[in-house]
């Protein structure tokens, strides 16, 4: 599962660097379809992979910019502080990634039939 995570984070980062934001949905879908063994696996990998990727990049930006912008965006969303925007970003990334991987895994099942661990 660690390897799957690394694949998702690695390919996800490369895809996002060159392609629009929704490329992460495609990557998570493909990881779910090709690299996962169960729904549980796909859900966890998809969620934590994209959540981690988004959190890592956002945290780096947040810290190196002293949170100037994060605090303002928090005010814009009427949320209490900058770190809540960080949390929101992480959750959103995780949610999108998890759903994409789960859908991907569904297609894997279609090809190979349901698996039993």
């Amino acid at each position, binding site marked *: 599962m660690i390897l799957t995570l690394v694949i998702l984070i690695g390919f996800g980062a490369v895809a*996002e*660097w060159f392609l*629009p*934001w*929704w490329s*992460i*949905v495609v990557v998570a*879908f493909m990881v779910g379809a090709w690299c996962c063994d169960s729904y549980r696996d796909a859900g966890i990998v998809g969620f934590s992979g994209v959540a981690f990727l*988004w959190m890592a*990049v*956002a945290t780096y*930006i*947040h810290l*190196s*910019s*002293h949170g*100037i*912008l*994060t605090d*303002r*965006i*928090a*005010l*814009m*969303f*009427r949320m209490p502080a900058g770190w809540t925007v960080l949390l*929101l*970003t992480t959750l*959103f*990334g995780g949610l*999108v990634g998890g*759903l*994409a991987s*789960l*859908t991907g895994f*569904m*297609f894997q*099942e*279609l090809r190979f039939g349901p698996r039993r661990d």
Partner: protein
Amino acid sequence: MRWLRCFLALTGLVILTVSLNRPVGRMPPFGKFLDPFHGFWRNAELSDDTFGRHLHLQGLEQPVALFYDERQVPHIFAQREHDLYFMQAFVTAKDRLWQMEFQTNAAAGRLSEILGPSLLDYDRHQRRTGMTYAAEQALQELQKDPQMIAILQAYSDGVNAYISTLAPTEFPLEYKILDYAPEPWSPLKCAYLLKYMAWKLTGRSNDVQMTNVLRRFGPEIVQSLFPDTPDKTDPVIPPGTVWHFKPVQSRKPAAPFTPTVAQDLPKFQPNSANGSNNWAVNGSKTASGYPLLANDPHLDLTLPSIWYEIQLTGPNVNVYGVSLPGAPSIIIGFNQKIAWGVTNSEADVLDWYQVTFRDVSRKEYWHDNQWKKTHERVEKIYVRGAATLLDTVVYTHQGPIALRGGEGVSGERTQREYAMRWAGHDPSNEVRTFYELNRAGNYGDYVAALKKYACPGQNFVFASHDDDIAIWHDGRFPIRWQDQGKFILDGSDPLSDWQGAIPPEQVPHVKNPSRGFVSSANQKPTDESYPYYLGANFAPYYRGARINEWLRTSRNLEPDDFRVIQLDTKNLHAESILPTLLRIVGGQTLTPEQKAVFEVLRNWDFFNDAAKMAPTVFDRWWRMLYHNIWYDEFGDPSLAVPDRARTVELMLRQPAARWFDDVRTKKVETLDEEVRATFRKAILQLRQSLGDMGETWQWGKYKGTSIRHLARIPGLGEKGLFTDGDLGIINATGRHHGPSWRMVVSLGSEVEAWGIYPGGQSGNPGSPHYNDFLDVWLHGELAELLFMQSKNDDQGRVRSKTTCTPK
């Protein structure tokens, strides 16, 4: 079955992704916006954002040197005029692209295109007041001046060169929040920006409300409550100045015109507080023996700020000052030989004409005893998420029909339409004036530059290192008969049309007056000897009189003294009336609380300092009293209300006037009763909203200045700033409005200058330079401006150097 399930899941995923890619109501598209690779995160500045050592730019003709100083102000050294304005646009766009475009879209009535149907009313207003027409007229006129159109083209190319470097990921933050993209710049957008400013400064008009007062109360009361000349004046041009010219005569209609009572009122009026201070003294009043000049324009305070600081050095020009993002040149600034500044003239250049159409088709209207043809412009308004709207605007020779009164009064309807005559619609070439001012070396150059100026009329203050000082109340002002344009005019009578403009050399002006100083604060420009009528809505005497008091009594002035004057908070309005109010209240028995408040007021020195409580009490008390005096008879929003200076005059001179009685009660109230009642009520209200008298009553807290984001996006502005001053005070800092740029220039062999504005050079909320000037501004300090004399003159303050070369 499993196929179906997969298909459904996939559809769900696609729908989710697509919907995260779109804005939700007023919220940004969540997926796109939160993604740290593309979304808002990318707008956070991780290091100081300047260009590298080299920049290759398509469109440059020769290499250009670009420096940024430690305040993030760009200094451009170009060898060609084209390159100078190309680079001005390029660096301005880098810091302010979204603002530049948004302001021009606001002027053009194109906001519903970005923000959706809620802005439709605003856009329609912009179209109906002829902003599109005005900008096209301006551009047509500019096209007759090949040098200026070349500059505007160079400026446009510079903006577009910057836009072409941007990937969508790098778009300024507001594009991502509102989910749209920048479009190419063109000279027409510069024209829109100039009209945006012209409207802000001359678009306000109370002709309709004054007409309604005239109809309801008659001419005597108009004369008494809305006099053309207030009792107290301290005009811009020193009283007694002799006019050495033969004025052009105007012809007045034989009989006065009685307009119908208008029901619609002009909408989206600019802020009535828009105004400014400027002044200059010659060497006889300074320690250095050379002139000093100061200027602080009072406008809506926004982030990004309306001003952008820059130094422009090129062939025959080396000038520093503030520019308007979206227009070439410096608007307020200085060069090695001269300095200049502006305040709004407040002369009346917008009138309303009652138009009679032949029939409902509005194809013909009655003028000069015949039916004349109107012409139509079809305005196309694109609306985000809704159908495109076509709006037909009818024009008479006066201007667009911008006000349509009395809908529903069938049969009469065609009688009640109003054409707007506005100086902003006339062809003019203000770009040329600022181009020449930037290069002016003496008084003659300055006057030559001003002769081409039209709208918005300004008091241009001037000082030169030859020790000349001057002020010209400059612009193209219509020749009017007395009170022409105070009320709605007869649209069928040629004698009610504007009869040409005051010749440029006959506008109010003075050079080197014997008093050794010149000043302006939007007050009436002249005494009664000036032969032309300019309007009746000038600012009251307060700021002008206070500035003149300072300058009259000062000797050996240092530049820092000018800063101190800019920060002066003496409230002349309070000084004029509060002692009388306290005398009325003083004879009464007061509760201990009232007694305490009374003492605070009695010990007040009339300075509106943020930490004092007296200004808060006085403000609340005065507002309540003013409301009680006028709102029984003038509460209808379609009526003009006498201003506070006139109200004070009445209270002092005619305390028994009928206005002090509340006509809604049977009893006859006296002024004294009103004063006492409002004193008690004001204290009660303050206690209810702020608690017992104490820190919460401090003026700075009660007023609480905020600087809002230009598009009012929450979180991107600043709130609750603790500031001195108020409207009608030299330091005119109000709730959302105030000194948008403060500048002091010391001329002489070496020019020195100081300045600050409440914002920062960067328009990016994710940059430390978004608001880094704010603290300095709040503390009443000015920054020393780096005026480089050559490329090598960095004075240890240049932080980055970039060589820009043609690609």
